[in-house]
């Protein structure tokens, strides 16, 4: 009896301690402990936001460290989503989301369309100006985001596009277009040129090759480039702060910053709003991280 119990314990231990050659159980245990510690450091601050979002309004200012607070409540979520009728306050939450979404989606659409076409030329044609163009696009990645913001701001002001979502779309396209071209060029480079030549012989023109062969083949890459561009603009704060000054145009980062500014009741609402925004983004991110990483290694690290 004891021997079987002992062996089942051993089996359980062995399940956990799948060892690489030469590692002692003690070392494996240490490695797990280190990883658990690191995971806690990585996750706990994020969990804190969830905790705070669940706190009742009268218990915000506390030195409590529990993850699920006492008297947990969803009041903050309701206030963020639907306003507070008792204080006659409306909620801008959906408006912010819509503002962000419309601006960032359109930016991404423009970038992906421009990039899909020009990246193809950069990948397949050898034309005078090609390498200069590529180096230039790479250099733009070195320019600080804030650097072109001032002239752009003044330009937009002159064109009366400050305080419009169109102005923000233009400002976001500055960094999004070159990055998307790089990402897509990296992908096009991996499509064998044989396919295009086969299509040319089959009777296709250059244009048909692009629409019937290249675009269908790169649809996943286009989706990823879109996602890339979208993620880049989705939680942007600094540029939006400059271009948008009217409340009803605020994107969500500007919006929730109005909550976060004071250490008051609004902190809970800030936390609730953050959780609702962050969870879908994180799910999307973790789901697509494999591609994001391969895109990063293709587009940036290779350069």
């Amino acid at each position, binding site marked *: 009896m004891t021997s079987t119990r002992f062996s089942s314990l051993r089996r359980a231990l062995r399940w956990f301690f*799948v060892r*690489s050659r030469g590692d002692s159980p003690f070392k494996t245990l240490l*490695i*797990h402990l280190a*990883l658990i510690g690191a995971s806690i450091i*990585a*996750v706990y*601050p*994020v969990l*804190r*936001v969830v905790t705070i979002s669940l706190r009742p309004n009268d218990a*915000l*200012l*506390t030195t409590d*460290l529990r993850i699920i607070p006492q008297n947990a409540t969803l009041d903050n979520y309701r206030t963020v*989503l639907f*306003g*507070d009728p008792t204080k006659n306050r*409306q*909620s801008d939450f*959906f408006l912010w989301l819509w*503002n962000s979404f*419309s601006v960032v989606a359109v930016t991404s659409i*423009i970038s992906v369309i*421009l990039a899909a076409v*020009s990246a193809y030329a950069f990948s397949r*044609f050898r*034309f005078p100006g*090609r390498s200069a163009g590529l180096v230039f696009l790479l250099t733009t*990645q*070195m*320019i600080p985001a*804030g*650097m072109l913001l*001032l*002239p752009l*701001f003044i*330009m937009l002001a*002159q064109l009366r596009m400050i305080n419009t*979502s169109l102005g923000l*779309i233009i400002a976001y396209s*500055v960094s999004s277009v*070159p990055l998307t*071209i790089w990402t897509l060029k990296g992908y096009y480079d991996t499509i064998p040129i044989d396919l295009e030549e086969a299509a040319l012989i089959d009777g296709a023109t*250059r244009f048909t090759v692009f629409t019937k062969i290249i675009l269908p083949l790169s649809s996943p890459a286009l989706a990823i480039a879109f996602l890339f561009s979208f993620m880049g603009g989705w*939680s942007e*704060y*600094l540029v939006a702060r400059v271009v948008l000054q009217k409340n*009803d145009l605020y994107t969500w*980062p500007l919006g*929730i*910053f109005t909550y*976060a500014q004071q250490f008051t009741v609004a*902190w809970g609402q800030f936390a609730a709003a953050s959780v609702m*925004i962050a969870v879908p983004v*994180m799910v999307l*991110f973790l789901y697509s*991280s494999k591609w994001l990483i391969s895109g990063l290694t293709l587009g*940036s690290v290779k*350069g």
Partner: protein
Amino acid sequence: MDETPLIRRFLPYLYWLIGLFLVYFVVNALIAPYASGITLSVQIVIRRLIEIGGFLLAIFAGLAIIEVYFYQIFFRQPRTILTAWIVRILQGVFAGMGLLMVLAFFERTDLFRLQEGLLRSILYFPNTLVDGLRSTLMGIGLTKDSSGWMSGVVLIVIFAGLFFLNHQLTVPRSSKLGMAYLLVLPAFIGVLVLIIYPFLFEIKLAFSNASLGTQATKNAQYGLIYGWNNLVTLFTGTVAKDATFFEVLGRTVLWTVINVVFHVSGGMALALLLHRPMKLQGFYRTLLVFPWAVPTTIVAMALRNEFDSRYGLFNILLSNLNSWLVDVSQGMVSVPVLGEMFAWLAAHIGPVSWRQDPFWAFVSVLITNIWLGIPFMMVIILGGLQSISHEYYEAAEIDGASKFQQFRHITLPLLRPVLTPAVILGVVWTFNKFDVIYLITQGGPQEKTDILVSSMYKAAFSFYRYGFTAMFALVIFVILLAFALVYLRVSGGLKSVTE
């Protein structure tokens, strides 16, 4: 030819449409009780869609017109001498109009300024034409918005007609590079408008005294002397309000170095821990990339409050640690060395003032940015580690190399192709990244946590020193350019980029 009935072919789209309407109605019904508390409304959505739709249409119609124009230049040639004259004149007029519109755009954005007069009216001739068309349309009873749309349609029809005429007068010809240039053209125009033009504008701005007082560029004066003044102010005066250039530059270097060192070493440590056959690897990995997955803005704003002196996480932890140390030291007061040591620790470790003390404020932004940046490096390094064949380690083990020697002589050299560009990019990104600083401390206290870019941002948008900021931006650009050039020299040129 296609025997599938029309309705069958459009069925999928129909389903989508019906689905969307269903979702709309369901959501609407669910939200109805709360609708009064929500500011977003269908009207707002539709208004935005029309605004953006018009914008997109204008962009793509404009691009299409330019594309067709160049297509005809590259791929069509006139049939006869006579048609050649007509075609070239048409194309010349088109190019002239285009040039005028570009110049008018420059004028309007204050790249240069023209006095009222003949020259200016010539410059604005195409715009006047369009405005004229628009007011005519408004004259026949259209609203302001729809007249804009209609004049766009009228213009497109006119261009289509002209292009059709051109098409009829020409025959096809082949062009080797035409295709490439046509494909690059839209992005080229985009880059021209979005990057090159603002950059030129910034250079001009750097040689001006533009500020809030001059109403930006409206009453600004330009001249080399202003550029010189801006430069002198930059190096001798304050960059935003309190801090000086070299102080901030030093802090920027410190900021970049500390961040990158911690990102790489932290990422390396975690990647090495993860890179082995073991249970729960995927689970740890997912947890460890959390800081990267959460939007930075949210993290920064959340941590901003966690650095609060009383209710923030960090001081709670520190004060808990402090009280524990106090307890221990009281319990051990009789133990000779240990007792003294704990007493000393209890006296020195405790809550700090993250907001008021410049040192701790800087530490607070560093902690946040390091926490944010480690997962990226970890993932990159892990990818690099996984691409190293296991056979190298087996060979090294047979040769009798210790674990450390394996790391030193196999892992590190083979990681180089992945690590070097990642580190370089890390340096550039960190150098330029100030959203964490801006959101947590806003550079305070007394700009003791500002780095170059955040100072620049504040100089422009908090203190409205436009001319000065432009010069500041150029100096930062030169610093980065020098860094990039050194990197390219070291890494062996741009061959790998353009191939």
